[in-house]
């Protein structure tokens, strides 16, 4: 059974929108540090960059209580099945942010005779937002959270700033 999220049986438009607004502003990320990007993810959660401003600072160790998986680091071939298993054990609705080049495409470790890593998290689990960088700065992780909120609520909170002409 391929790991994915299905639609609910009854779709009420207004209710769905209200729920999405609540979900977007209270993302509980799964502490899932693989390598160097994990330290930048921790720095993003701490006092200066503070993910709590966006409701995303509650790092849950168990996938049962998390709804956002931050893939922070290189997924090695030995770790691949564990990543898929963790994603499957997260209850729906769930989202994935791939932090860093390793999670996007294998990054600096992706070259012809590579034998140890899965070149990209989207080969094994569906990814919603990608953040390039090696490691990306904490501000980029915050922008990713905002972009994910935009994707969940389908309202352009961030787009307003982006359209400001220089």
């Amino acid at each position, binding site marked *: 059974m391929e*790991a*994915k999220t*299905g639609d609910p049986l009854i779709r009420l438009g207004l*209710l769905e929108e209200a729920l999405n607004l609540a979900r977007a502003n209270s993302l509980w990320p799964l502490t899932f540090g693989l390598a160097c990007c994990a330290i930048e993810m921790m720095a993003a959660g701490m006092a200066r960059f503070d993910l709590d401003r966006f409701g995303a600072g509650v790092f849950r160790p168990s996938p049962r209580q998390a709804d956002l998986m931050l893939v922070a680091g290189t997924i090695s071939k030995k770790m691949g099945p564990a990543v898929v298993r963790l*994603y499957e054990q997260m209850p*729906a609705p769930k989202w994935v942010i791939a932090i860093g080049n390793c999670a996007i495409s294998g990054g600096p470790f992706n070259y012809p005779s590579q034998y140890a890593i899965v070149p990209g998290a989207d080969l094994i689990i569906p990814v919603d937002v990608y953040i390039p960088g090696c490691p990306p700065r904490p501000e980029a992780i915050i922008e990713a959270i905002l972009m994910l909120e935009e994707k969940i609520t389908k309202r352009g909170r961030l787009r307003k700033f982006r359209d400001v002409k220089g």
Partner: protein
Amino acid sequence: MEIPQALSDFSFVLVFLIGAALFALGPIILAHLIAPRSYGAARGDTYECGMAVIGSAWIQVAVIYYLFALLFLAFDVDVLFLFPVLLAYGKGYAWRDFVEITIFIGILSLVLVYAWRRGVFSWKRKQVTP
């Protein structure tokens, strides 16, 4: 067919039971209907740090956990008895009720004191002589 007076008093209990059942089952059914579904092979397995579980948990558990369960039971039943006291508290002499309650709880907390003295709560570290 006319319902005898005694029986109709029980209708309140019936309504109460139905309300409780709805209150309990309602979110489950609601979630089943409007929550998005998640599919995956390992969705139902026990979560153990991303790995498949090794061996079974159905083994002889250390006796110390049994003692903890007993202590909890003692206090759980203790709270159960306090519910009826709630209704009758303070009707007559408030001080009498207060003293009775402290005696009641005091006797029950002797269990805790006894367990503490017997060292149930101290996890002895096996002194590893290097």
